[in-house]
C-alpha cells in the first residue's frame, strides 16, 4: 500500500466474474504522512482508507468484468462496519463480490480480514462511465497488469 498515493491494493490473487481477492500490506509508521496525522502517538489505518481499499477491490472486479472498457467510480457507501483497528505493517486480505450487475452501475460487497480476523465490510454502489481520457485508460491498464490482472488489448 502507498496510502498517500491511494495505491491500496498490492496484489490481486484471484478473480472471476463474481469475486476478486487481493492482498495488501499496511506501511510502517516511519516517514508516513498519513500516520503522522492519524494519529500522533497512536498510528491507526484510517477507516475511510479501509473503505477506499474495498472500493478499489470492487473497481478492479468491475474493470475485469467490463474488459476495461469503462471506468467504475464510487457512488455510494452503505452498511460500513469497521470492526477492529488496523495497525501499521498489518497484512490484509481483501475480497470484493458482485451483488448486482445493473445498467450503468453495479452493487458489490467488500470485506477485509487480517490473519483470519474480520476487520471490516461494506456494501458499495459504483457507476460505470466512459473513461474520461485515453491517458487514464492506459494508466489503469498498466496498473492492472502490475497487480496481476490479465488485461485485453484495446479494441
Amino acid at each position, binding site marked *: 500500500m502507498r496510502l498517500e498515493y491511494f495505491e491500496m491494493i498490492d496484489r490481486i490473487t484471484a478473480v472471476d466474474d463474481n469475486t476478486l481477492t487481493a492482498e495488501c500490506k499496511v506501511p510502517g509508521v516511519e516517514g508516513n504522512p498519513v500516520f503522522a496525522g492519524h494519529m500522533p502517538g497512536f498510528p491507526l489505518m484510517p477507516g475511510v482508507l479501509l473503505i477506499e481499499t474495498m472500493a478499489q477491490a470492487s473497481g478492479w472486479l468491475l474493470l475485469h468484468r467490463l474488459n476495461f472498457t469503462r471506468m467504475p467510480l464510487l*457512488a*455510494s457507501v452503505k452498511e460500513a462496519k469497521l470492526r477492529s483497528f488496523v495497525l501499521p505493517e498489518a497484512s490484509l486480505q481483501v475480497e470484493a463480490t458482485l451483488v*448486482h450487475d*445493473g*445498467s*450503468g452501475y453495479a452493487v458489490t460487497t467488500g470485506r477485509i480480514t487480517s490473519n483470519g480476523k474480520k476487520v471490516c465490510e461494506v456494501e458499495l*454502489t459504483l457507476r460505470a462511465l466512459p473513461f474520461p481520457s485515453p491517458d487514464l485508460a492506459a494508466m489503469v491498464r498498466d496498473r492492472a497488469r502490475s497487480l496481476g490482472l490479465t488485461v485485453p488489448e484495446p479494441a
Partner: protein
Amino acid sequence: MASAFDRIADLIAETSDVPREKITPDSHVINDLGIDSLDFLDIVFAIDKEFGIKVPVEAWTQEVNAGRAPAENFFVMKNLAIRVEELVAAKQAPSG
C-alpha cells in the same frame, strides 16, 4: 398482488424521502418527485431486485438524448410501471 405502479411507488417511498402519498401515476420521477441521480440509482437497484429484471436505464437515456423518445415514456410513473411490466413479461416469455 399489488400493481407494478404501487410496488414501484412503495419502493420509491422506502428508498428516498418522498412521501408515498405524493407519488401519483402522473408524477415525473425526476421533475415532480425531486429524486436526484444517486437516489434514482438506489431506486433502480430496488426495482431490479423486486422484479428480477435489469432496468435498461442507459438505453433509455440514450433514446431520450438522441430524440428518439420523450423522457416521459420512461420517467413518468405510470409509464415507468408499463416499461417494468414489459421487462418482466419479456423475461418470462419463452426464448427461441
